[in-house]
């Protein structure tokens, strides 16, 4: 069993002492001491699918791009079409290498025509900041990660609970819409986004208000049974929704075409870093595909396990027990010729060859409620 590495100095979010108070199990996550679970991953997972969960994701990085050339700069830096964003909207995008592979995946928020917020993966923040700064042209790039704590409230009851701590009801926000709303009297950005496959909000807060807001949300959500949730449930939730995890499913060896994220690449918008390589790969044929799989044999195929297909070797990039489906699921990078839904392959589970098959994704899709 693993032992914790408390000797190394880990970064802590403003909610560290509250996590301890709530009895969280803390782990080293990319240099951050973060809660992996409070009550248990399965219970936390269920809370988000059925009711509501609250996550501390303050470790995420925030970069700010400002100035009149921000739009031009972001069009060069990212593959999605920033020109399509209006004020108060965000979209999923990436930084790509010249080879068309992922430097990171991220969200781009348009606050105004000359002010954008980029939300990046915690452990990539220094790399992303340097990368953007070097290529930003006239736009000013600042690392604002220390200025924001980030809470995610997720689940079918998230909207009504979040509304109780907001000065004005955020429920009218569309998916991937955001606005500045006072939360318990402190200015915050409230965004209808998340990493769970459920409806929900992410709250960008000043670090000194984070604990107060977290406690208030726990209190406000008591009638609905809100549950503090750790990174363990965050991982099973995002995997069921087939949302990629940098470092597992995507990294600087894989392109958006291969990762089934072609929808964030807008070839017609003009030039961007990585475009030429993506054009070449598209013309030559995409060699590998990231696919969802289920096991035909018993066992959980986990990150890094070797896969074998009729068309050659592959790799399991994520794998877990799906709490919603009650069975093992995963993502694998397979040769394109062996990646069609229904294709069978084998995974080496600690020396045993177990059969798996490619399935449709996402594994879980929330039921759309009839809007009032």
């Amino acid at each position, binding site marked *: 069993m*693993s032992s914790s590495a408390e000797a190394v100095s880990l970064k802590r979010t403003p909610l560290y002492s509250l996590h301890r108070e709530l009895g969280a199990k803390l782990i080293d996550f990319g240099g951050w001491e973060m809660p992996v*679970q409070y009550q248990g*991953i399965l219970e936390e997972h269920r809370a988000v699918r059925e009711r509501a969960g609250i996550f501390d994701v303050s470790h995420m990085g925030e970069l700010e791009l400002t100035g009149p050339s921000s739009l031009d700069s972001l069009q060069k830096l990212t593959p999605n079409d920033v020109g399509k964003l209006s004020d108060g909207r965000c979209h999923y995008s990436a930084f790509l290498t010249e080879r068309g592979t992922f430097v990171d995946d991220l969200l781009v928020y348009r606050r105004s025509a000359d002010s954008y917020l980029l939300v990046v993966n915690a452990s990539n923040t220094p790399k992303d900041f340097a990368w953007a700064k070097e290529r930003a042209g006239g736009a000013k790039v600042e690392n604002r990660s220390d200025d924001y704590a980030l809470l995610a409230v997720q689940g079918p009851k998230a909207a009504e609970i979040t509304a109780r701590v907001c000065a004005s009801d955020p429920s009218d926000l569309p998916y991937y819409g955001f606005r500045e709303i006072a939360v318990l009297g402190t200015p915050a950005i409230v965004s209808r986004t998340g990493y769970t496959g459920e409806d929900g909000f992410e709250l960008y807060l000043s670090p000194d208000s984070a604990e107060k807001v977290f406690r208030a949300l726990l209190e406000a959500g008591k009638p609905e049974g809100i549950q503090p949730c750790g990174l363990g449930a965050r991982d099973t939730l995002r995997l069921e929704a087939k949302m990629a995890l940098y470092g597992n499913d995507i990294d600087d060896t894989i392109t958006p075409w291969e990762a089934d994220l072609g929808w964030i690449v807008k070839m017609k918008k003009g030039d961007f870093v990585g475009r030429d390589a993506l054009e070449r790969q598209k013309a030559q044929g995409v060699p590998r595909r990231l696919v969802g799989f289920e096991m035909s044999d018993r066992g959980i195929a986990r990150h890094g396990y070797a896969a074998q297909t009729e068309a050659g070797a592959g790799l399991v990039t994520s794998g*877990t027990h799906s709490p919603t489906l009650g069975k*093992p699921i995963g993502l694998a990078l397979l040769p394109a010729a062996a990646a069609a839904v229904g294709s069978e392959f084998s995974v080496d589970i600690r020396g045993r060859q177990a059969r798996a098959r490619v399935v449709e994704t996402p594994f879980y899709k929330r039921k759309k409620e009839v809007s009032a």
Partner: protein
Amino acid sequence: MNPEDLHYAASHEWVRVDGEIGTIGISDHAQKELGEIVYLELPEVGHAYNADEEFGTVESVKAVSELFTPVSGEVVEINKAAVAEPGIVNDDPYGDGWLIKVKLSTDEELKKLMTAERYAEYLKEEEKEK
């Protein structure tokens, strides 16, 4: 706490001896460390092991751990209920959550295992080292 009548291994398995049959499971500490168990891989009946050999794996949502038999012997029964419903191991690690039963080759090996009292001390020492 940990039952007095069991023998405990440093790798957090226990053995309950009843005549020539040893029942093997994992300790309460082990199940807590693992978190909710979602998958168990146990051997076939008839398989023989030497002490300290790996006989299976236990998986939580997050992690995989190997299971080591504290004693030598031939597997005479596996807990099929626990394979079907691994959460039993979390709920009742010393009772319904047992894993396998073996026909003991010798009772000499039991001497090398810890008493409940010694195991409790061992857990404290392990905690300090963290």
